């Protein structure tokens, strides 16, 4: 316990890093993924903006990227990272990779939830003279909002999970703290305190997500 107290500033910094990585990844990945999901939904054959080439391209891209384990994905996109953010290590590099990875997962989740919206509702909007883009934003997203929020909550938890691997690339965070200050020094209290902190973050996120989804569904 004494060890932990001396490392309290590092612990605080680790929490800050985890929040930094997770919040930015979920926000940026969430927005990109929303876009991907809308494109997947709208360009699907028979849909509002049916466009087979675009659909096939995006669909294949999502299918290719999603099964890649995060650690390998991060390694694989290092050339892209060098070009865009100028580095392949550190918190920002991890956040960049995590945002991209989350975007593809979110894209699929958004698409799936939009597909559950009753086609009759879309027809009603079309009959009212609404444009396809407007239908996507003002009808489809609101109609699927509850499940979409739950999907985002799921992604939040997955991102917290993946952020624990940030340490491998010098990204810091609670996972890194637990390994370098905890297990590698046989300092088990630090491991368990880190684990407990992650559990609390996940629980808080899940609770918030459930609450928001319930409000959206009015149940």
């Amino acid at each position, binding site marked *: 316990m004494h060890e932990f107290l001396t490392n309290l500033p590092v612990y605080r910094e680790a929490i800050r890093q985890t929040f930094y990585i997770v919040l930015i990844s979920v926000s940026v990945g969430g927005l990109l993924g929303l876009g991907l999901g809308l494109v997947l939904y709208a360009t699907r054959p028979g849909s509002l903006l049916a466009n087979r080439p675009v659909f096939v391209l995006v669909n294949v891209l999502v299918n290719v990227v999603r099964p890649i384990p995060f650690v390998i994905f991060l390694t694989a996109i290092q050339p892209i990272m060098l070009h865009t953010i100028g580095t392949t290590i550190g918190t920002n590099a991890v956040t960049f990779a995590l945002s991209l990875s989350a975007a593809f997962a979110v894209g699929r989740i958004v698409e799936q939830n939009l597909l559950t919206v*009753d086609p*009759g*509702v879309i*027809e*009603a*909007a*079309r*009959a*009212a*003279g*609404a*444009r396809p883009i*407007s239908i996507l934003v*003002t*009808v489809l997203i*609101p*109609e699927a*909002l509850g499940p979409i929020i739950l999907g985002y909550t799921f992604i939040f938890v997955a991102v917290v999970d993946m952020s624990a691997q940030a340490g491998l690339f010098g990204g810091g965070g609670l996972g890194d703290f637990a390994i370098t200050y905890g297990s590698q020094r046989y300092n088990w209290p630090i491991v368990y305190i880190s684990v407990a902190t992650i559990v609390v973050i996940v629980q808080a996120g899940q609770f918030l997500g459930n609450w928001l989804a319930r409000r*959206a569904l*009015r149940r």
Partner: protein
Amino acid sequence: MSTETGPAIEPAQMPDGVRVSGDVHVRLEHVDKIFPGRGRRGVPQAALKDVDLEIRRGEVFGIIGYSGAGKSTLLRLINGLEVPSSGQVLVGGHELTALGERGRREVRRDIGMVFQQFNLFRSRTVAGNVAYPLKVAGLGRDERERRVARLLDFVGLLDRAHDHPEQLSGGQKQRVGIARALATEPSLLLADEATSALDPETTGEVLGLLRRVNRDLGVTIVLITHELDVIRAVADRVAVLDAGRVVETGSVYDVFARPQTEAAARFIGTTLRDRPSPATLARLRATHSGRLVTVRVRDQAGFQTRLARTFLDHQVAAEIVFGGISELQDRPVGGLTFELTGPDGAVDTALAALRADGVDLIEEPE
């Protein structure tokens, strides 16, 4: 009932004093609609074949047909949700096929649509549902609120404005659907099996509302249904759709009192027992030894007197053994089956006399 007492809102485009002004609102000319088959090897399906139709401004026009007859496709051609494979669709003088999708969207804003499953937005309140087409049309918030209140009052749901659709009964949902369809003050309303998901009592309520929309607001209504009772209750004219073709068109009375096609005759049989079914006929035969003849009852003055006199003159005893008479557009329609007995040849001469007199009769098969 609250739907009957709402104050009238401004007529959309009321032709002064004339309900059906006679000019054409919707015209379909030689319309074919062929859907490509599903998948690579799918066989193309012809949903509509050479459809000609003329719907007049201010009338309630019914399209009746069994499921799969092409009714929904026909309705969706009128608001441009589908485009014909060939032929022309004209709405209020606009040729939809020539307009392009953007132009068709504009036309759609002047056409309301009501659906069998209501298709309300679950994410919006009752008021939000009615306001949606107004948002699409770009109306300001104040004007939207004014119109929504007026429309909800018209359909008798002002007190439910802030509820969500799932809190409403089926009939109430459809009234919201109608209010939403009327939001932009359209001159044309399309109803896609609007009452088929409702119980009989609620059906009457919704049909009453549609009639009010037509009479008070002067809105032309095109409704599709598979139920003759719906047509009887509200339609002025009707088209019978069978396997993608319009097989009969005309006033509701003419089409169903004098059906020219098997399809139309089948529909009248569903609502009216105007002829004994084969099973009924077999039972009648068991207890009646005379000849069974069904006479079509139509809107003809002195019909029964002539019938009675002819039978009397030929010494034919006529016993009514089956029948049903109802009303279509306030005129009688139906059939009466007589058991006729008399001296040799008398029945034949009586029947010949009646036929010569213009009576429509059918000798039931042995």
